């Protein structure tokens, strides 16, 4: 895959962004909470963007994958704690299990629902989150409504100091790595044959089909990839919150935030989620000091305004304004 130098600069900038954020945590520990949140939200946006941005479809039940990831990670910890296996296995098994669960569920949903046209797919996904949550609560799977609680197991595996380390530095690093991988995945997809097919299908699905793009296959690939990263984020996040119970894990707020970060930042662009994530996190964090819980009230109308008047988001709109400047246009792709 021979790439233009602009594309190479793009991915280096994105990775540098995450590296800098992660590094700043070490240099300014007093800001580590804020920085971690920025990493979390940009990661969420990056993962969500792989599907929404590249296909133009929206999965309103996206948080279900994050929840699955949280469960996958936590259950792995519980399992390893109950055996004599080496503790490090918990940290390896967790992400693997999370991804496996996401792939299975995403494949099922994808094969069934991605044959539906945009609006109908969105309708179907409205229920995925609630449906899965109610299934877990109602059928008492994985602890049902009481959830999974892992601080005890973590302490048993790693000791008190290890517990402190894992729930902060390790989890944060994991998030930064996942975010970077999601950025790389987005970038690889966009610059490959699949990416061109996805771009075509987002612009005009029927025309894309007639031109030879296997739209269903590509939608499913994007969906599963996006879901996998979502679950990995959940896996890391689960290590931070250490109690996973359905109303919180399946909290629709995460989907809302993912939509906000991605769409306002610029759906489909590489830097969109970064911009959206920074804007959203800073607002949420500093607003939270004075007026907690108001960030959604503020961002919802912004989201509506973006959707109705600036559908390309910050990155995309800048790109359009300067569309005659080839370099800037390609850089903000």
């Amino acid at each position: 895959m021979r790439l233009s130098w602009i594309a190479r600069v793009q991915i280096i900038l994105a990775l540098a962004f995450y590296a800098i954020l992660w590094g700043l945590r070490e240099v300014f520990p007093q800001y580590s909470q804020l920085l971690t949140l920025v990493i979390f939200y940009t990661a969420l946006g990056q993962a969500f963007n792989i599907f929404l941005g590249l296909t133009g479809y929206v999965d309103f039940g996206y948080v279900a994958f994050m929840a699955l990831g949280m469960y996958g990670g936590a259950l792995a910890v519980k399992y390893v704690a109950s055996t004599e296996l080496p503790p490090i296995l918990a940290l390896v098994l967790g992400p693997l299990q999370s991804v496996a669960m996401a792939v299975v569920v995403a494949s099922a949903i994808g094969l069934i629902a991605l044959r539906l046209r945009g609006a109908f797919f969105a309708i179907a996904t409205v229920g995925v989150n609630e449906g899965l949550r109610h299934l877990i609560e109602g059928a008492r799977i994985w602890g049902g409504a009481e959830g999974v609680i892992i601080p005890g197991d973590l302490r048993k595996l790693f000791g008190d100091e290890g517990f402190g380390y894992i729930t902060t530095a390790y989890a944060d690093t994991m998030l930064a790595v996942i975010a970077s991988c999601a950025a790389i995945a987005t970038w690889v997809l966009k610059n490959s044959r699949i990416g061109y097919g996805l771009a075509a299908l987002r612009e005009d699905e029927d025309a894309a089909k007639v031109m030879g793009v296997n739209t269903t296959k590509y939608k499913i690939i994007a969906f599963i990839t996006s879901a996998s990263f979502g679950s990995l984020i959940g896996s890391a996040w689960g290590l931070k919150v250490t109690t996973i119970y359905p109303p919180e894990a399946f909290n629709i707020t995460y989907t809302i935030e993912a939509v906000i970060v991605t769409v306002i930042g610029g759906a489909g662009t590489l830097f969109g989620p970064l911009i959206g994530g920074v804007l959203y996190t800073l607002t949420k964090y500093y607003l939270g000091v004075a007026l907690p819980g108001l960030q959604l009230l503020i961002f919802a109308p912004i989201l509506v305004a973006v959707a109705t008047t600036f559908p390309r988001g910050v990155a995309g709109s800048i790109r359009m304004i300067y569309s005659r400047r080839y370099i800037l246009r390609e850089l903000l792709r």
Partner: protein
Amino acid sequence: MIAITLLELKKITKRFGGLVALRDISLSIDEGELVGIIGPNGSGKTTLFNVISGVYKPDSGSIFFAGIDITSYPPHRRARMGIARAFQIPRPFPGLSVRENVAIGALFGVGGEGLDIESALARADDVLRLVGLYEKRLELAERLTGSEKKMLELARAIAMSPRLLLLDEVMAGTPPASIDKLAGIIRELAREGVASVSLVEHVLRAVAKIVERAVVLHRGEIVLEGSVEEVLRSEKLREIYLGGVRFVA
């Protein structure tokens, strides 16, 4: 020279509710042929194209392409086999550049699987040079003028290395200066074995440049077939168009 049958429609019928859009259509097109489907609005021309490109499944009958039964093939598979389509109202991908639009044709048309992005873009450049849009290759497709979009539509189809071109009213709305160029491209492709089927509602003199064999469609049935000169002179055609065929010079 042995004419190889490229596309074969066998007794295709397509209904929409109570309306029969196509009735028992049988048609055969050879490699390198220049065919025109002539008919007024509502005759079923667009439905025929939709059936050939795979957007609609026929209620009965079968379609063969290069000897293979493609009746149940989805649109993208037919495109990969070499059926390319240019729409009457151009539908370029608006947010992509001209070059990228054409590159998608190269990537997903015949032989596209093995193509990498660089080569696809290079091929796109070649095709754009052919149709005269090379200078605008980096522009966003939505910024092109109407006739430029029509050329882009054709360029995308050509980039797919098609064996069969489905051209929907490609002459209508094309400025006179471009007509000869367009016709030249289509005829050159025909010499290389690419068959073209053109939908024609308004019979212009220009049509004769890209049609050798004419098939007249009326209310979903083939009512007349022959060389373009014969058909254009026939009484039947005059009847169908109510008031006669008008030649626009």
